[in-house]
């Protein structure tokens, strides 16, 4: 290690306050071993490379009281993925805790203490599985040591059993609760002395339970929040109830970047219950996580605030919005389609595509469109904030509590230490709540009510019209086939506004992490490949939406591969297996992807063999190749994302009126080792339904810069009749590869698989999403 590295390491450790009051090498050693770890400081990839890194100190995460109640701290946002159950289950299993005597406690936003808490990128389990197992194994060893000390025997003479430690030689035993106090006084053992349980000793990790493809295997271990949810006791953002709370809603500029020219609040202030209006200054473009500005109406209840807002007379100034005020979806789509006809910034190239296209026996060409979409979690954004005496305290359903604290601290110009963020349950996130703008907005209102909690509620209209929209996209593909239908060339131009436009002057080109979501990582084995990214400007706030740019990339690539198979007169499955080529590992750097979801490409290469396996499994399970009745067809799509592999086959029927009935979905999924298969299945089922919405219904359009949909009457989401009659999830048994993500990788192949099935059933090719009424027209 060089001198400068040493200095950096010490500076970082010191910054985190871990050396405060401590001196010398032993303090550093302690910090290195248990709190942030040398690995964190030096890591290029994985959990250690995330801000705040990982922590595996048992004293941070595991507490046992004298009655034996085990409290396990969950540091990640719970938004429906089940992490509060799954991560707590991992620790409880390693510890040997009786599940009925385990409770979860939600960590406040404190990355210095709890490690990285940005719940995004399908990272929670793949980054926290190992640290939580180590923390639990250390706690177990401390309990064993405490028992050994009490009995006056060496620690290797005792062993932990379920919720107790036993001394087999004498039959003596002590419960975890009886040992907790003494164990707490012990030094935390070094990682080198930890022995994790073998698979055969595990009770929960990797074990199937619950509802498996229609059959109930067991009802244990039960979900941490299950009972609270079904009895209405679970606390989401708006359910935080503080004394003396005032309620706020905000009128925001309809066009991104516009400001308030004038406001007449006289009628609003007459509404019964309305207390005050507060001007919120927007910070212009790029907005990042800052409020959009506007006028807040503060009242004694939410309804009064909404009625007050209705009575506001606001004149908006569109001048600062520039040409955002001209943003109209049809025109924009046409401009991207036109731009897609010309070469763009070259992202990846091998062979001579233009020459190969000229020589091709047959050329296939298509352009695909995916519109803006709003995440629309069932719980609209909401936050409770109290500003008092130079400090701020927030209760909010946020995916990224650290960014929330930073945003509030910046707004109020106070130190980060003076901002507390309590994380509630999230009533869905899907990326919307990775942006804490709504909490910062609430803080701005709360600033005007010193000491009084402000609950700022977004209506559904606010949520859909002022979303951080999923990027609209045009993808134009062209391929050349030889006389046997085999692909000789592949040219793909992708156009979308970039999320980077949210934080900096609009780059108009996709960032590396955006291209790395299935564009440059496309694994087909074709002699000539050219991938380009022509420019596309942003006119609204563009943000993460579950699976992000994997959605348009998978939609275009998987639709087009099917079109190529049709043009070649080949079976779709056989054709794509041939396109993929033999099982092999593709290193991300060789395809120009330096991102790889933040993971080490040596551990997480693009594994074509795993891709083939999910395709083979899904098609086999679906009965691929069997004759179907008229109006009925199977459709396949697959995708690698968040370092996991998914293939989907739909069995679809389309009637003469264009009505789509989904008889069955077969989803094959390989995420490597499975911590909690039960919740993996539920994520795949949910992704399937959400993807059906992307295919058939979801669209936000703009006219003169204003979103044209505002609620579920026109922004359509899948409902029970849209769900497949049968969903089958086939988890690939693959404990030997590195663990992949789960929350997002199920989604990208769903829409193209469904559209490919619609083609198989009807011969109608969908190239513009959503399907809407295209089949009845």
């Amino acid at each position, binding site marked *: 290690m060089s001198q400068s590295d040493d200095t950096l390491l010490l500076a970082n450790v010191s910054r985190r306050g871990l050396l405060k009051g401590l001196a010398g090498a032993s303090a550093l050693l302690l910090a290195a071993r248990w709190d942030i770890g040398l690995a964190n400081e030096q890591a290029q990839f994985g959990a250690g490379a995330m801000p705040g890194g990982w922590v595996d100190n048992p004293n941070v995460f595991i507490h046992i009281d004298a009655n034996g109640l085990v409290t396990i701290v969950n540091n990640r946002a719970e938004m429906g993925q089940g992490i509060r159950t799954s991560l707590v289950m991992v620790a409880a299993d390693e510890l040997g805790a009786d599940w009925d005597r385990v409770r979860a406690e939600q960590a406040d936003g404190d990355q210095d203490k709890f490690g990285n808490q940005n719940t995004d990128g399908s990272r929670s389990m793949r980054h926290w599985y190992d640290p939580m197992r180590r923390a639990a194994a250390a706690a177990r060893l401390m309990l064993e040591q405490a028992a050994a000390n009490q009995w006056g025997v060496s620690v290797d003479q005792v062993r932990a059993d379920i919720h107790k430690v036993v001394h087999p030689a004498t039959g003596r035993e002590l419960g975890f609760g009886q040992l907790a106090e003494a164990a707490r006084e012990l030094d935390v053992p070094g990682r080198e002395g930890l022995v994790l349980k073998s698979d055969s000793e595990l009770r929960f990790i990797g074990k199937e339970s619950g509802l498996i493809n229609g059959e109930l295997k067991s009802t244990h271990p039960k979900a941490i929040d299950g009972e609270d949810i*079904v009895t209405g006791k679970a606390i989401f953002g708006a359910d935080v109830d503080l004394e003396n709370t005032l309620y706020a809603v905000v009128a925001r500029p309809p066009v991104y970047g516009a400001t308030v020219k004038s406001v007449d609040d006289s009628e609003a202030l007459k509404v019964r219950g309305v207390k005050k209006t507060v001007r919120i200054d927007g910070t212009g473009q790029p907005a990042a996580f800052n409020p959009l500005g506007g006028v807040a109406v503060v009242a004694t209840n939410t*309804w009064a605030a909404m009625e007050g807002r209705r009575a506001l007379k606001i004149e908006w100034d569109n001048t600062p919005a520039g040409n955002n005020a001209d943003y109209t979806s049809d025109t924009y789509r046409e401009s991207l389609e036109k731009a897609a006809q010309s070469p763009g910034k070259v992202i990846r190239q091998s062979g001579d595509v233009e020459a190969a296209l000229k020589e091709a026996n047959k050329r296939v060409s298509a352009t695909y469109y995916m519109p803006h979409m709003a995440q629309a*979690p069932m719980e609209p954004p909401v936050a409770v904030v109290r500003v008092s005496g130079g400090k701020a305290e927030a209760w909010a359903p946020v995916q990224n509590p650290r960014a929330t604290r930073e945003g509030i601290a910046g707004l109020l110009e106070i130190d980060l230490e003076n901002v507390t963020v309590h994380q509630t349950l999230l009533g869905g996130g899907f990326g919307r709540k990775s942006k804490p703008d709504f909490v910062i907005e609430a803080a701005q209102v709360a600033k005007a009510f010193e000491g009084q909690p402000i609950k700022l509620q977004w209506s559904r209209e606010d949520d859909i019209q002022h979303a951080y929209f999923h990027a609209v996209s045009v993808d134009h593909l062209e391929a050349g086939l030889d006389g046997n239908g085999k692909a000789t060339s592949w040219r793909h131009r992708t156009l979308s506004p970039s999320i980077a436009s949210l934080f900096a002057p609009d780059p108009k080109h996709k960032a590396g992490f955006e291209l790395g979501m299935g564009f440059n990582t496309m694994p087909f084995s074709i002699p000539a490949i050219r991938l380009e990214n022509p420019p596309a400007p942003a006119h609204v706030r563009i943000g993460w939406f579950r699976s992000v740019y994997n959605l348009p990339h998978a939609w275009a690539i998987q639709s087009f591969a099917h079109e190529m198979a049709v043009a070649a007169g080949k079976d779709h499955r056989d054709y794509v297996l041939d396109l993929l080529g033999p099982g092999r590992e593709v290193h991300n750097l060789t395809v120009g992807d330096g991102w790889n979801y933040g993971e080490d490409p040596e551990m997480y290469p693009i594994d074509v063999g795993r891709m083939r396996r999910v395709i083979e499994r899904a098609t086999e399970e679906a009965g691929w190749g069997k004759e179907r009745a008229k109006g009925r067809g199977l459709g396949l799509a697959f995708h690698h994302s968040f370092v996991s592999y998914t293939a989907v086959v739909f069995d679809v029927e389309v009637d003469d009126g264009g009505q789509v009935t989904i008889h069955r979905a077969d989803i094959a999924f390989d995420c490597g080792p499975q911590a909690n298969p039960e919740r993996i299945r539920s994520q795949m089922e949910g992704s399937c339904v959400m993807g059906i919405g992307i295919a058939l219904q979801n669209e936000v359009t703009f006219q003169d810069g204003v979103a044209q949909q505002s609620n579920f009457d026109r922004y359509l989401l*899948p409902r029970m009749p849209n769900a497949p009659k049968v969903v089958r999830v086939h988890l690939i048994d693959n404990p030997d590869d590195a663990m992949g993500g789960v929350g997002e990788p199920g989604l990208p192949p769903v829409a193209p698989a469904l559209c490919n099935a619609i083609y198989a059933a009807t011969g109608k090719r969908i190239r513009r999403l959503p399907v809407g009424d295209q089949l009845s027209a």
Partner: protein
Amino acid sequence: MINLTINGQLHELDVPDNMPLLWAIRDVVGMKGTKFGCGIAQCGACTVHLDGVATRSCITPVSAAQGEITTIEAMADDPVGSKVQQAWLDLGVAQCGYCQGGQIMNATALLKKTPEPETQEIIDAMAGNLCRCGTYNRILAAIERAADKEVSS
């Protein structure tokens, strides 16, 4: 003044006649199990029972809520409601859980009226309740389980 009978308890509220029942329940009475999702009766997160009928509280003014109001907080004491809740737990229906109170209220109202519904009847009856996490197959299976029908998904 408006009188509301919620879960058998009388509440006298000083609120305007046109205040939706949802906000009276949440902000004035202070019961948080009934959720706000859309405000226009398109999602069902706010579903309560009014004299046993599944009702969207977000568009029902308090002046029209003159009857027995039952919320998710009272379902554990209801023989059908508790059965539905147990089926939800057994099959691990919930993901984020935000909509599930409304789903359970709607399902319970259905099963009280139609104890052994056909699958299509369930689908039709539940079409007004949105779940963004996409738990519909498990919701359907849980309702069939609560109705003592075969579990299917």
